[in-house]
């Protein structure tokens, strides 16, 4: 029995090429009926298209790639060079790395695990996945969970919006009773506000020079529009201030913030300044109970998190290596039962 993975990903192909091989509804049936695969699982995400399969005889990469073509008639040329192929234990190792997020564009992202589970469920339902793939994917899900819990690979947000939300969570814990004021109705503040709404914020106020724009954004995020002239009054009540106006000089300074904070010394104020040029004077961060983050500091934390995740790759690989070793015992025995061949082919082409 040959166990292999053939595919292309963000490492080897651009999005245009990946789209061409995104597969079609009947691809697993074709792989089984036309190419003779005994078990097939198709994993398609925005960053990868991969076929995991078991077959009695070796099947050339070109034939599998041809099956994956969305438009069946297009000729394959050099595109096939973008495909990689992993066999036997290399295939096992590759899947464990993919499921754990080590092979992802954003290292440590967890969405891939959900996508792999979905692909596995679909293959089980259609009868395309049999005992080999069942065992392989169940183990992959376990490995991914271990890598996630035993290392810091998923730790820290890696985009500006999620960094802001994570920091807010570190200050306030729960969001249900938190109040947010948006100064300016730009796209960036809208994204951050949406992320906060998703985490449970119910009270969002939008202040903008254009009242219509403020109202439009407030409607989108179930908030309320307030006059720009009244931002200071609202600032007394809110916990989070997101600023992204087009002002050319700071509109939030120590002098206008100090009187607003006098009555709320026991409540922290988190200010997210995503405007360029900045809306909030940098020395505001020195005020008691105020935590100011501008676009540079948010981006720097995102970069820092990514770097920390990269440092965790070695620890993740170690966990994976242990599981590949464990899995090889079962795999050798299963192969022997299937073809009576004790040796394992572990070459990678």
């Amino acid at each position, binding site marked *: 029995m040959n166990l292999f993975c053939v595919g292309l990903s963000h490492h080897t192909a651009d999005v245009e090429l990946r789209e061409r091989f995104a597969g079609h509804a009947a691809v697993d049936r074709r792989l089984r009926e036309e190419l003779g695969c005994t078990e097939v699982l198709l994993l398609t995400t925005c960053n990868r298209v991969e076929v995991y399969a078991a077959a009695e005889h070796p099947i050339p990469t070109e034939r599998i790639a041809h099956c994956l073509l969305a438009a069946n008639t297009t000729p394959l040329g050099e595109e096939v060079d973008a495909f990689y192929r992993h066999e036997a234990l290399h295939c096992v190792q590759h899947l464990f790395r993919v499921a754990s997020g080590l092979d992802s564009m954003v290292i440590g992202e967890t969405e891939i695990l959900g996508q792999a589970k979905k692909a596995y469920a679909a293959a089980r339902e259609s009868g395309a996945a049999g005992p080999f793939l069942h065992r392989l994917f169940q183990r992959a899900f376990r490995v991914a969970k271990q890598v996630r819990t*035993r*290392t*810091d690979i998923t*730790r*820290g947000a890696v985009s500006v919006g999620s960094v802001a939300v994570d*920091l807010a*969570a*570190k*200050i*306030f*814990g729960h969001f249900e009773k938190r109040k947010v004021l948006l100064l300016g109705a730009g796209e960036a503040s809208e994204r951050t506000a949406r992320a906060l709404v998703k985490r449970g914020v119910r009270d969002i106020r939008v202040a903008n020079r254009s009242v219509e724009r403020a109202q439009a954004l407030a409607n989108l995020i179930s908030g309320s529009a307030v006059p720009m002239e009244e931002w200071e009054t609202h600032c007394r009540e809110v916990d989070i201030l997101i600023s992204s106006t087009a002002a050319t000089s700071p509109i939030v300074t120590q002098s206008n913030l100090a009187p607003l904070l006098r009555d*709320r*010394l*026991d409540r*922290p104020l988190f200010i997210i300044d995503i405007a360029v040029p900045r809306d909030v004077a940098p020395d505001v*961060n020195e005020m*008691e*109970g105020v*935590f100011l*983050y501008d676009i540079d*500091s948010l981006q*720097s*934390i995102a970069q*820092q998190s990514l770097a*920390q995740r990269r*440092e*965790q790759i070695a*620890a993740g690989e170690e966990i994976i290596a242990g599981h590949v070793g464990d899995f090889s015992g079962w795999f050798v025995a299963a192969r022997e039962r299937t073809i009576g061949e004790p040796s394992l082919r572990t070459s990678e082409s």
Partner: protein
Amino acid sequence: MDRELLLVSTLFFFLAMVRTVVAIRGGNYQPAGFNFFAIALGFVLQTAFLTVRGQALGRCPLTSLFEVFIFLAWSVSLIYLLVGPAYRLSLMGAFTAPLVFGLQTFALLALIDQRHPRQLDPSPWLELHASVSLIAYGAFALACVAGLMYLVQERQLKRRRLNSMFYHFPPLTDLFAAITRLLWLGFALLTVGIAAGFFTGQPLPYVKIAWSLGVWLFYAAILFARHLGTTAPRAIAALCVVAFTAALSLLWGITFLSQTRSL
């Protein structure tokens, strides 16, 4: 025999401390169950020590500075085991273990395990006074630990430098709520402890009364400032650290003096 129990107990707190330090230095801190179990085992051995010592003395083992320190370390562990998991302050163990380790190591090395020849007669009120007051100190110790955590977390957020430990810290507002609850718990216990002292039926040493009331007033002032809302949480957290450090130094001084002179 009882000292051996204490040595092994100290070893468990040492292990919890070392594991945390190594993890933090390696940039991969995970609040695993190891800390909690190491502290729980250390606590069991502390309890065994206090039981053996209490049976040998025929009274609550608070007859020397050594026993006072161990009872205090036991109170800190007790409050941590009760409060830590309830408020999801698993990281508190990382700060509690060094504190208990320090208290016990000091007690073991400082040659203070000497029974004072002049002992007050055992009385239920006296034992209630001493034990409840020390458990109150345990709560204040944990408030100090939570205060330290608050200061570390606040500093990281202000400086925008977040290390791997940052992600395991509880949110600032949760920490502040825990500080407030621990302060109230300690304050209530200390009030009961001080009140019990007046029922012992024995002459009260004026220095101890002044010291107890001083500590009580200090914590009352912190709680008052907390509830007025006019003091920043950072200042409250810092005051918790200062108050406990001062109270612990005074406790040592007063107990030491009361063993050498009649106060």
